[in-house]
């Protein structure tokens, strides 16, 4: 998956978890803005792990706290 695909997947997931429209999800703001709770962040990292078939720590979302940063970090995973 390229970076744009990962971004749009994240937008979809976050919109779903936060209960907002995908258009309302900005990629350069902290996840806190969407009031995502830890359960949602952990669950999305689990889904991401399955999607990419790469090991993703549950704390990934805390380490890279916006969609842009997260997509960059995913790219850099081996």
């Amino acid at each position, binding site marked *: 998956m390229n970076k744009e695909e990962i971004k749009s997947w994240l937008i979809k997931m976050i919109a779903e978890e936060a209960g907002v429209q995908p258009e309302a999800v900005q990629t350069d703001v902290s996840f806190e803005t969407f009031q995502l709770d830890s*359960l949602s962040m*952990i*669950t999305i990292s*689990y889904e991401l792990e399955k999607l990419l078939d790469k090991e993703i*720590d*549950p*704390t990934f979302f*805390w*380490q890279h706290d916006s969609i842009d940063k997260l997509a960059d970090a995913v790219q850099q995973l081996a």
Partner: protein
Amino acid sequence: MIQWNPYTPGYFENPYAHVAQCRTELPIQKGIHKEWVIFGHKEVKEVLRSASFRVLNLSDYFKEKEPLIVAPGTCPFLAMGTQTWIMYLNGGEHTCVRNLADMALRQIDFKPIIAEAVDHCFAQYSNKATVDIVDIATQIPLYIVEKMLGISGLCSYEQLKRFSHLVAISQDIFVSKHTYRDINEEFRWAFTFFEQLYQQAGEQNPQRVISFLKQFNHAHTEPLEKNEIISLIILLLMAALETTKDTMSVMLYEIMKDKQLGDYILSATDTEINVLSEELIRIASPLQYTVRVADEDVEIGGHHFPRNTKLFLCLASANRDPDVFPDPDAIQAKRNYNPHLSFGSGVHSCLGARIARNEIRSWLKPVTKHLQHYHLPADTKPVWQKTIFMRGIKSLTVVHNPSA
């Protein structure tokens, strides 16, 4: 500056290096999850013993999250399953349920059961070429738990082992919805299983803890509901099995690694065994973290915490604080001053500590004797559980010595 993160590489194999670094560089800090974590023995103990803190309410958390966790149309069991877990109750409710559980446990004479457990377990292994020491560490305490609840032979070893482990994970952090769904299924199984036992329980039935709880409950003016009793039974099963299993798995690994330790155990006096048991319980520290919430504004270790601040207390780090335990990572068989926090402290301190201590003290020598027939092949490393609040070994195979 160091930040607490249990996903630091190598953490599951050895959390102690990371928490020691946190304790040295920043002993009160916000971890990766943006919550406060406390590492020093003095401060952890102070919070555990302080009347200004309450425990979290796990069941209320599940009540709030359940609609998001379980699939539509699935019956939620998480909040119901944890509703009378003593370590998540406060005030009068805590005292009441804790006293009830204490009385129920006092109905049982654990001594003869503890004495039988080791031989009963090793009888299955007499001819096996290899043994997973985690099976030994599970089967010995499981024998006690089955007798305690009167469920011997009623469900499989695999079922009980999986159930207890998954249910314990419901208290961990960084748990995904997928895992909570698996846990929900385990609770579902348990409610069916224990409800049947509860219906049958009576004076003639051997389910002593269950019968006691049922009868005592009937005699009470404000009885607990049946589901509250079942939640309490699940808690007793999990609390008694997981912690003891995790302690023993680490203990057995240490004994297999260090021949001198095994030799010491075999020739130790009763007093020496008691002192060493305490030291091994400190080293194993199966419950590595617990959480408290400030009931009012408080100051701990020079930090001011406003009311409702959540504090993660790192028992694992407190148990290896060199200010209290010289040479903290070493097993010192004769460590006499050993104020470890493996059983917690204060009003929520472990209700089963007396039983657990008796178990470990009675088992140390006979288990070591049995394990003399096995060795740990060179380069064999344990597979550690990927849990954060609880620490224990997932599997470690030892090999039978060639017969002479």
